[in-house]
């Protein structure tokens, strides 16, 4: 290991020499500059590797004295890691800044070196006063670098920063000197030994003063206005260092002074950190300037890291180094890299509005990196933040830190809200412009994106239970490969994905049993089927296949999940993939956002439940531990269930669905509707088969689930009839249909679950069919408004037949498969006796007829429009799966027993009582009977006979023209005048009045409005006035002190 003192030697020597060398030309100076930075990075990296390999930590003592008499620098594992990342970041940001450094005065180079050196010192020193010195060195260098910018924004921000920093230094000095007075030493380790916080309030005050200074440097709410200004105004390369490296060093200082703190102070740090996290992310909602937004996010994340760290120490969890590393370390490194990357990107884009960032789209690689940074910050897999957050919730739940968990998840949710809004704008905003990149700017970005991916993989290995995540490796690798193959034409990728998915399904399905097999068929076989329409898309279809694979990978992994971690990771991967599929639609941006937010919100609630499970159940990650749950079962059930309910869009949580499914592309709609929704159902089955009697107090949760299911059916179907947009109509219909599924499951009986599965299977078949058929129509007629269509039966007969079969199956009219569910519903009602819910459900089911008719009538019947006279039938790749699905529906209608019988058999495992008995093809229950094949044959024969009769008596029927009708003594000549399509069920709206109002939408709009108003209110404290910021700092100190002393 190289003597770490060279870190300082090199920096100082280069710093002194630079002014001289610069005389020989800037390139020479830059060479020395980069050489110095590289050497520093190299030394610290080498030290890190050496110490990791078992080498002793290096100690540096000044003047040969031992501490406490000398100033002591230490290079241990932690120090070497932190100096390494700081130096590497310094080097990368230096490279990023090369253009600027070429033209600036040479002092900029010197100052930059000093800043990095100061950070190294901050990290390595063990002496409190020396810490102050390095702090000042860093600060002065930073102030000066900010001041070099010749614009007023930068200067005024820098000045505010100096005032705040000055105040922080004041506290630091006073704290230091009094600690010295009480302990007689300045050496941190000796001081920690000598310090006795119980000896009096003055000692506490001294420690407090020191701590508060460190805290102010960590930018707590509300004493952080100056920092926001700096983030917004300073140069991007520099801000990357300030936001990531300086914060890293300061966090490390907090880590170093931790031994001086007592429980109250730690709690204070935790409270400050988490408050800052939640509030600054709240305020982030109102930001429109990218860099200020990143500022809010940075401040929040640093608050999160210090809050979480303090709680880990306080709760004793930090005594397990791995926990500290995974949780605090994970959050830290995740933010460290992602935030630097985003600031660098901000420099590249150079736009002052979030919308302006669409220019990234010209360079897919940059969009990819942007996505990586954003997703990492939000904490989605496969990035380190995800694993850190997971482990955090587990550990916090185990320690009973519920409030903190809630705050962390709340803050994360708010952050996700504005970050995903931003991502959506980048992906969807239209406009001109391009980003110019250079190698020097591309390199740091590429490396940081790769580092995030690599670390994500690493964390997935290190995390407890992480070995189970192997099930996701192969599919994720495939997704990654598809990113690289994105230049291929769509049909090649489509074939590739179909082949690989079929192969995967072939491997996976035989190993599954029971309901998992059934869902496997829906997820994977259904997935392959719905990939076929992809052949209808020309060009490259960039960014479709990686995410499609991701979604299916998540779905497949759900099937074989055995641990809560696997389940949750698969869940998030699936959500992520589907988000990117959904946002592909032309007008999908707001809907994809709302999909993502509901998903994330649901996932967080679920995570709370999983954490609670981990806590009360002996830290077991096994899904089977749900079964042996003895306490808190009801609460855990409720929390996890809420997560799944968001996915199946139960009433109240459904508002994301219509837009997300309705605006998606032709083949995406059926994927997310027919297949993806079933993931939520799968989750519910996993949950409910484990916890059979979920009670909170005396309340049986399943009873209320049944009500929710019934109301969902009723309102979902009711809202569907008012839609003018064909795809939204289908989307609302999905809401309603998943209500049946929920209702059936909530029965907790054999037949109830069978009903649910019958509905689910049927929904899969007909909804895929309908969305494909309508999607095909929309592709041809270029509108989704039904009243703009009409008469298309003559142009698109196959699509018409699809829709006809689809709506008959949907409505539950015999003889097609939908009837299975209806029949079973009556049976379970008689069995269970929940008549009222059942009634709401059945009435809701009847309303489905209205939209079924409207869909087929307004699109295919009535009057053909002039501009549609030449439309062609939907493309063949869209028709093929429809034909397959129609055959499947017919088969399921004729032989329901072939599916429901085996399903019933495996349900016996969970519910041995109340099974259906089968006599050949006749289903028998205690109440009724049904023979699907007989009904089909009888209906068919009757139909054929009547048809024959009509043909015989009416063989010379003459086909007439479109306008061969007369009404009110008019002969119409325009289809628009005679096609009744708009506001088709006006009378129903009038009759039902109150039920037709969008309460849920209003409610969530209100929530969003409230959050934004609150955000706007809070952020007004940052008036821009330096003196106000000073007042904030002083108030902050006073309030925290009042808290710490309890007075």
């Amino acid at each position, binding site marked *: 290991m190289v003597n770490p003192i060279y870190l300082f030697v090199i920096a100082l020597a280069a710093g002194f020499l630079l002014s001289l060398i610069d005389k020989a030309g800037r390139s020479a100076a830059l060479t020395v500059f980069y050489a110095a930075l590289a050497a520093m990075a190299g030394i610290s990296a080498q030290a890190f590797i050496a110490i990791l390999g078992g080498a002793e930590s290096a100690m540096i003592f000044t003047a040969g004295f031992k501490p406490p008499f000398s100033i002591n620098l230490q290079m241990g594992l932690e120090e070497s890691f932190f100096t390494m990342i700081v130096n590497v970041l310094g080097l990368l940001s230096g490279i990023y800044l090369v253009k600027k450094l070429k033209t600036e005065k040479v002092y900029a180079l010197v100052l930059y070196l000093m800043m990095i050196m100061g950070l190294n010192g901050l990290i390595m020193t063990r002496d409190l006063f020396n810490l102050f010195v390095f702090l*000042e060195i860093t*600060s002065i260098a930073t102030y000066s670098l900010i001041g070099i910018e010749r614009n007023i924004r930068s200067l005024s921000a*820098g000045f505010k920063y*100096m*005032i705040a920093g000055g105040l922080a230094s004041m506290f630091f*000095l006073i704290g230091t000197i009094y600690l010295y007075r009480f302990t007689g030493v300045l050496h941190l380790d000796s001081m920690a030994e000598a310090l006795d916080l119980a000896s009096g309030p003055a000692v506490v005050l001294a420690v407090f003063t020191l701590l508060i200074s460190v805290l102010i440097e960590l930018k707590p709410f509300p004493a952080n206005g100056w920092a926001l200004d700096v983030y*917004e105004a300073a140069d991007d390369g520099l801000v990357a260092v300030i936001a990531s490296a300086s914060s890293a060093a300061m966090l490390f200082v907090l880590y170093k002074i931790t031994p001086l703190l007592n429980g109250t102070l730690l709690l204070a740090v935790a409270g400050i950190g988490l408050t800052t996290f939640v509030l600054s992310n709240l305020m982030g909602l109102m930001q429109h300037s990218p860099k200020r937004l990143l500022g809010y996010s940075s401040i929040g994340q640093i608050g999160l890291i210090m809050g979480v760290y303090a709680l880990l120490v306080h709760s004793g969890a930090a005594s397990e180094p791995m926990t500290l590393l995974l949780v605090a370390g994970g959050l830290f490194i995740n933010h460290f890299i992602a935030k630097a990357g985003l600031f660098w990107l901000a420099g590249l884009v150079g736009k002052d509005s979030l919308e302006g960032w669409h220019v990234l789209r010209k360079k897919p690689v940059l969009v990819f990196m942007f996505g990586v940074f954003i997703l990492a910050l939000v904490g989605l897999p496969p990035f380190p933040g995800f694993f850190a957050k997971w482990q955090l919730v587990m550990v916090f739940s185990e320690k009973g830190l519920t409030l903190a968990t809630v705050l962390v998840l709340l803050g994360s949710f708010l952050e996700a809200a504005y970050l995903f809004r931003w991502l959506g704008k980048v992906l969807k905003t239209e406009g001109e412009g391009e980003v110019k990149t250079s190698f020097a700017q591309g390199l740091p970005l590429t490396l940081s994106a790769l580092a995030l991916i690599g670390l994500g993989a690493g964390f997935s290995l290190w995390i407890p239970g992480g070995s189970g995540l192997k099930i996701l490796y192969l599919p994720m690798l495939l997704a990654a490969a598809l990113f690289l193959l994105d230049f291929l034409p769509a049909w090649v990728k489509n074939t590739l994905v179909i082949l690989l998915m079929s192969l995967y399904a072939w491997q996976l399905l035989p190993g599954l049993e029971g309901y998992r097999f059934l869902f496997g068929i829906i997820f994977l076989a259904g997935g392959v089927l719905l990939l076929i329409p992809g052949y209808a898309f020309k060009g490259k279809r960039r960014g479709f296949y990686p995410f499609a694979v991701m979604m299916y990978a998540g779905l497949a992994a759900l099937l074989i999940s055995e641990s809560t971690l696997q389940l949750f990771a698969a869940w998030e991967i699936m959500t992520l993939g589907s988000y990117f599929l959904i946002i592909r639609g032309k007008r999908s941006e707001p809907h994809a956002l709302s999909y993502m937010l509901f998903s994330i919100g649901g996932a967080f609630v679920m995570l709370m439940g999983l954490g609670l499970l981990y806590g009360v159940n002996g830290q077991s990650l096994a899904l089977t531990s749900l079964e042996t749950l003895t306490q808190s079962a009801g609460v855990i059930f409720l929390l996890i269930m809420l997560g799944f309910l968001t996915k199946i869009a139960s009433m109240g949580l459904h508002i994301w669905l219509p837009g997300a499914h309705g605006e998606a592309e032709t083949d995406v709609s059926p994927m997310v509707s027919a297949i993806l929704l079933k993931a939520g159902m799968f989750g519910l089955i996993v949950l409910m088969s484990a916890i059979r009697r979920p009670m909170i107090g005396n309340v049986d949760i399943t009873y209320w689930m049944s009500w929710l299911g019934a109301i969902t059916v009723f309102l979902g179907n009711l809202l569907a009839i008012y839609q003018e947009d064909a795809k939204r109509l289908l989307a609302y219909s999905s809401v309603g249909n998943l209500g049946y599924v929920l209702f059936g499951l909530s029965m907790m009986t054999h037949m109830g679950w069978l009903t649910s599965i019958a509905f689910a299977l049927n929904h899969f078949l007909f909804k895929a069919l309908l969305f494909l058929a309508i999607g095909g129509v929309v592709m041809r007629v270029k509108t989704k408004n039904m009243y703009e269509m009409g008469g298309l039966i003559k142009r698109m007969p196959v699509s018409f037949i699809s829709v006809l079969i689809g709506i008959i199956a949907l409505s539950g009219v015999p003889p097609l498969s939908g009837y299975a569910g209806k029949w079973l519903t009556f049976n379970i009602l008689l069995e269970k006796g929940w008549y009222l819910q059942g009634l709401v459900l059945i009435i809701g089911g009847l309303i489905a007829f209205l939209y079924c008719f409207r869909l087929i009538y307004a699109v295919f019947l009535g009057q053909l429009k002039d501009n549609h006279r030449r439309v062609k039938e939907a493309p063949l790749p869209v028709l093929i799966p429809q034909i397959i699905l129609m055959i499947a529906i017919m088969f399921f209608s004729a032989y329901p027993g072939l599916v429901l019988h085996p399903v019933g058999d495996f349900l016996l495992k969970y519910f041995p009582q109340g099974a259906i008995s089968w006599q050949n093809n006749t289903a028998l229950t205690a109440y009724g009977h049904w023979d699907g094949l007989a009904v089909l044959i009888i209906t068919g024969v009757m139909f054929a006979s009547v048809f024959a009769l009509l043909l015989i008596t009416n063989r010379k029927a003459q086909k007439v023209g479109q306008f061969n009708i007369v009404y009110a003594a008019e002969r119409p000549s325009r289809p628009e005048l005679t096609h009744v399509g708009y506001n088709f069920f006006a009378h129903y709206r009038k009759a039902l009045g109150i039920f037709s109002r969008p309460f849920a939408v209003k409610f969530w709009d209100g929530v969003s409005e409230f959050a934004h108003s609150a955000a706007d209110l809070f952020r007004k404290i*940052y*008036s821009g006035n330096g003196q106000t910021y000073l007042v904030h700092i002083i108030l902050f100190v006073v309030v925290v002190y009042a808290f710490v002393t309890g007075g």
Partner: protein
Amino acid sequence: MTLITILGFILIVIGIWGMLSQSNIIKIIIGFSIVDTGIHLVMVSIGYLKDRTAPILDETVGKAEALARVVDPVPSALVLTAIVIGLAVTALMLAYAVKLHEMKGSLDIHDLKELKW
């Protein structure tokens, strides 16, 4: 607590008051300097022990009795460093003030509100 310590704190408070009440940047910087001075006084006063001599080992103060007879030298050393740093910061602040005046034509801190919310 000695008189000097109290005096130091009074100076700190005065300085902060100045920073808060004066809108002129130069005056704010002066306030900052006063705070700095106050801190230095406090630091020195901590190290000072009554009736002791300077911490210099020579004929009058032998090695053996040094511990009992000299004042604590460390705070004085710290103060020296702190003064140097304070000077640097003050100088930098003034440089900022000059630049701000050049660009904005004003030294009023209320005029520096380009960035907010």
